[in-house]
């Protein structure tokens, strides 16, 4: 692992939703670090808590949810303890977010230039003209052709892929140290997804921005990220570098996910599958949450496993991890 100071350090984060039906522990004891200029892939299926983790970092968890414990260290400050005003100063400035649907970022009734200039001036005292110049340059940076004319357009005049580029440009306006990207290419066609991923990779390398890339698609993370954390039922079950985790998974859930990717199976034969389905966060099985679907479950799994170092630099939340090469060959 690299020794450079991390951009973000999340420690034992807990984000709970206090609903009438009970307390939903959407994020439960999540810890990870994001290295400077590196891409961290946060992977999981629907309801695993990956998006809520992202929202917690940028301070966008709505009631009945709130951060119930843990810390989020960013440049020496704990984001979980900041006031709304202090957070607003960071949000869109030092930390930015890109959503799956770019229309979450864009206002449909305002021209792109209005929205971008407003964003620039929200955090910097610059002239209208300088702000416009900055907006223009950023649009060019994310590969939007003829940015001068496109600034005058409304969001609906862009295609889906171009709209996502505009959302990325807005995230980049203040050259943030950290960008949280929540499934930003999931709704796009493959050729457009390829273009956006290429741009993002280039940007991370040239600007030194760190990225948290939230996705359900292991294949995207494989090509894009440096580190990976796999979430299941609100917890990180495994983390490490992409090469380590995808080539030699320790946790049976990670191995199951990798095994069910079609290209890892012989054509036309049944895919290896994880039986059952994700349990409801309101009534998780006691002990290891994955126990009921796990082929290796045994007596010790009735207790709750902690995330622990199993191999040097490799952590997983499992009592009976896959450690031999044959077991890991997914």
């Amino acid at each position, binding site marked *: 692992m690299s020794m450079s100071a991390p951009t973000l350090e999340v420690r034992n984060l807990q984000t709970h939703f206090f609903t009438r039906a009970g307390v939903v522990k959407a994020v439960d004891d999540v810890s990870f670090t994001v290295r400077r200029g590196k891409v961290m892939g946060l992977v999981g299926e629907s309801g695993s808590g990956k998006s809520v983790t992202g929202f917690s970092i940028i301070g966008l968890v709505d009631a009945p949810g709130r951060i119930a414990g843990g810390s989020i260290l960013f440049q020496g400050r704990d984001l979980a303890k900041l006031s709304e005003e202090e957070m607003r100063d960071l949000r869109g400035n030092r930390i930015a977010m890109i959503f799956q649907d770019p229309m979450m970022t864009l206002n449909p009734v305002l021209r792109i230039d209005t929205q971008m200039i407003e964003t620039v001036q929200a955090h910097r005292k610059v002239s209208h003209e300088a702000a416009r110049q900055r907006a223009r340059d950023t649009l060019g940076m994310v590969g939007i052709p003829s940015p001068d004319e496109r600034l005058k357009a409304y969001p609906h005049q862009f295609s889906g892929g171009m709209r996502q580029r505009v959302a990325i440009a807005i995230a980049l306006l203040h050259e943030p140290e950290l960008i949280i990207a929540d499934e930003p290419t999931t709704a796009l066609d493959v050729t457009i997804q390829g273009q956006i*991923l290429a741009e993002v990779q280039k940007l991370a390398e040239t600007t030194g921005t760190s990225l948290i890339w939230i996705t359900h698609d292991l294949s995207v993370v494989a090509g894009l990220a440096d580190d990976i954390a796999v979430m299941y039922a609100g917890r990180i079950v495994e983390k490490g570098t992409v090469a380590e985790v995808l080539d030699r998974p320790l946790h049976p859930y990670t191995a199951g996910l990798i095994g069910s990717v079609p*290209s890892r199976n012989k054509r036309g034969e049944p895919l290896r599958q994880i039986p059952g389905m994700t349990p409801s966060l309101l009534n998780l099985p006691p002990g290891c949450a994955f126990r009921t679907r796990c082929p290796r479950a045994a007596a010790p799994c009735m207790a709750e496993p902690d995330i622990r170092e199993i191999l040097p630099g490799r952590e997983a939340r499992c009592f009976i991890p896959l450690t031999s090469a044959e077991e890991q060959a997914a």
Partner: protein
Amino acid sequence: MSAAMKLDAGAPMVELRGISRRFEKKLDFAGKIAKRLGAPVREEVVHAVDKVDLTIRKGEVVGLVGESGCGKSTLGRMVAGILPPSDGVIMRNGTDILSRSSAAAREMKLRTQMIFQDPYASLNPRMRVADIVGEAPLVHGIVSRSGYDAYVDEQMRRAGLDPAFKRRYPHQFSGGQRQRIGIARALAVKPDFIVCDEAVAALDVSIQAQILNLFIRLRTELDLTYLFISHDLGVVEHISDRVVIMYLGRVVEEAPSETVFAQPNHPYTQSLLASVPRIESRKRAFSVVKGEIPSPLNPPSGCHFHPRCPHAMERCKVEVPVLREVAPGQRSACHLNDQA
């Protein structure tokens, strides 16, 4: 290989000849007046599907691939008989299903069923699962009142659902289970041909594998033929015997699965395959196809792909390439093949 040879011998189950579908946006009153006054307005026509020929043989799984707006869903709906084509003939086991009066055509339409992408939108929220699955076979006389309960149970069990849940409503099920209800409903009328339109696209990875396995199992169990429409090349590669690739309403390439993924011929197929993220890849530069998918309202002249194609020549801008055989079983629509 023997399986592939057997497939070649299979009789055509579905034959499309010169199928086209146009969607027109008629001018409204103001538009008509503006046109009469000489304003440059015209009726907008989208050629969603443009003169497609396609044969699906019995027992085959044909994957239909393309990006949004390429017409793959429109084609699927026409094959399933729920959308009439603007031009062309659809033959099903030798019967023209477009001749609406014929009883044989109706029978053929019943034997073609469709499974949709969104299991949330394709199930009636006010109906119990038992009625969703059992209504059609009852109406079509496939099952009698007395055998109804047992029949519904059997259909549900086959799709991997517990018949104890038959009194429940769709909202009480998860996404994967809802897709199983859709499958049970489609199979309840004893079809031999299934059109799956992005049937696993909305599902999580682990659930997607379960549903794909169900498709694979049902195929052998019930001797089904599939037209499998998807944008996900990994899924299509896994399940299909033959792959058809569409771009802006036209078929650009068609070949057996192994051939398409090993030796793609058309430049569009090549760039599509290069764009697909693979789990085997590590921290690499993503290959990039330049440009965007053009609007189907105003497609480029000649070969639709020429503005994005790295090999485009003068000829590609004027002449529409025809789909023709480039290797045994592989057809491609590209002018480059004439030069070799």
